[in-house]
């Protein structure tokens, strides 16, 4: 945007070119629900359980945005757990990096290994690093609308979340409205997250219960058809289901204590 200012009573004027961030809205949203496949494999049974959970998160995302595979093909509610997008080999990671770099997706739920500045593990070509987000010219002006980074330490530095959604801090909806910003929200974990008991060969269900309760709350619709709970209220419910969550015996779920989030905390998933 080019701005020219002429002070009162003067003939000279000053002008400058200002780069306005965050003003370009997405015409439509497109979502990706992806897991780092085989990252926590203890047995095929456990991987199948993770696939089932990923299907639950996929269906939650589908409530607000069309979902796609890494190759761009459309995925609808009728798919089974085997078709949830996966990153595992070099090629799938390359596709994932390209899709994010090019701004193909506005919404992302990722489950897998993570760190304070990258997703994935192992060699660099099976990772998505922070510099990629910083170098994306598309993301510089069109940050993503919703990003869930369900991996270790992904919110240890909020700069990593900021690379995805453009905010390093929590911002209220009234501030967003006031400044004309598009609602965006991102969350991750501030510490190492255990997701399975290796020797017992079972998942640490409390972790997945938190995420499931969060999405269940976030995507609850009222009689008018709109979603009812804000991001923060959904996170609050995941931490304190008070017996109303997926596990009726849980009142408080301490797994949620190390979550951190940035962006419009009191916005809704479908706005």
């Amino acid at each position: 945007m080019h701005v020219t200012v002429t002070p009162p009573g003067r003939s000279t004027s000053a002008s400058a070119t200002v780069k306005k961030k965050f003003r370009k809205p997405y015409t439509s949203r497109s979502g990706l629900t992806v897991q780092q496949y085989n990252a926590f494999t203890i047995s095929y049974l456990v991987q199948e359980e993770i696939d089932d959970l990923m299907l639950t998160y996929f269906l939650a995302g589908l409530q607000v945005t069309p979902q796609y595979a890494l190759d761009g093909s459309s995925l609808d509610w009728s798919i089974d757990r085997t078709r949830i997008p996966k990153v595992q080999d070099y090629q799938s990671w390359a596709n994932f990096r390209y899709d994010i770099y090019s701004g193909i997706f506005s919404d992302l739920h990722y489950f897998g290994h993570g760190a304070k500045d990258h997703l994935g593990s192992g060699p660099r070509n099976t990772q998505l690093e922070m510099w990629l987000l910083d170098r994306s010219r598309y993301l510089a002006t069109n940050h993503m609308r919703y990003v869930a980074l369900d991996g270790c330490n992904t919110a240890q530095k909020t700069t990593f979340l900021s690379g995805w959604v453009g905010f390093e801090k929590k911002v209220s909806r009234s501030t967003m409205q006031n400044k004309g910003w598009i609602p965006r929200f991102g969350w991750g974990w501030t510490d190492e997250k255990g997701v399975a008991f290796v020797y017992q060969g079972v998942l640490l269900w409390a972790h997945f219960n938190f995420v499931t309760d969060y999405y269940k709350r976030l995507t609850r619709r009222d009689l008018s058809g709109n979603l009812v709970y804000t991001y923060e209220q959904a996170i609050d419910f995941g931490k304190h289901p008070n017996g109303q969550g997926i596990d009726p015996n849980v009142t408080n779920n301490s797994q949620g204590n190390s979550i951190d989030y940035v962006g419009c905390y009191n916005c809704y998933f479908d706005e």
Partner: protein
Amino acid sequence: MKSPQFFRVSVILCCFAVGMTLLVLLWQQPQKREQPPHGRPTGVLTNEEAAGQSTAETRKLQLPDDPRPEVQLLYRMAVAANLYNFNPEILGIRTNTKPKTIDVGTPTHGACIAGGRLERLYSYYDGSDTRRKPEAANDWYQSTGKWSEQAAIIETLEILRRLNDTEALDAISGGGQKCEAHSLRVTARDGKQVEVTPFYRVELSNVNGRNVVQAEFRIGTNGPVGLTDWYCWP
């Protein structure tokens, strides 16, 4: 000896007096129902006091007799909190299983009930959430009234007290109190730019910083006119 005509007039007068008495009694019945059980909300204008508002705001609150517990929870809140533009007609009730939660819908408001408590209540069209009717923001220019953040916090606490929600009051005891009220520059119908503060949003948290109670109040031309959003999950 009285004439028959005298008796006829006496009977007509008596019938008229009895009829008037019955009319007065019937008229007073719904008036009694309007009174909040613990007095009127403080700091919030009654609908009549919010002069200059739309006709919907000056409408009197008349709650139908509906013994269903979920409806009673909603009406109890309506009385305690002066819901803005509230139409109490129940359009639908949906019971969800696993876990059991209940959604209640009126023409103007939605409510969610879980674990026997009203945890969420919101105006469809008059709050800051304009997803259902984006053009509702065109009326925000009317919100020229003044209020204060402190008064909004006090009013939120008063609502909890009127509801006698000791669980929530205990949860927020010693916790933080925050109120956010942003001024907006909007265009009035006549094209003039006016600065307004349409909403006051209160957040009451527990000692761990968790927001237990959230409330949003709407401002009218003379001050606050009622609650538009409520969340309470102790």
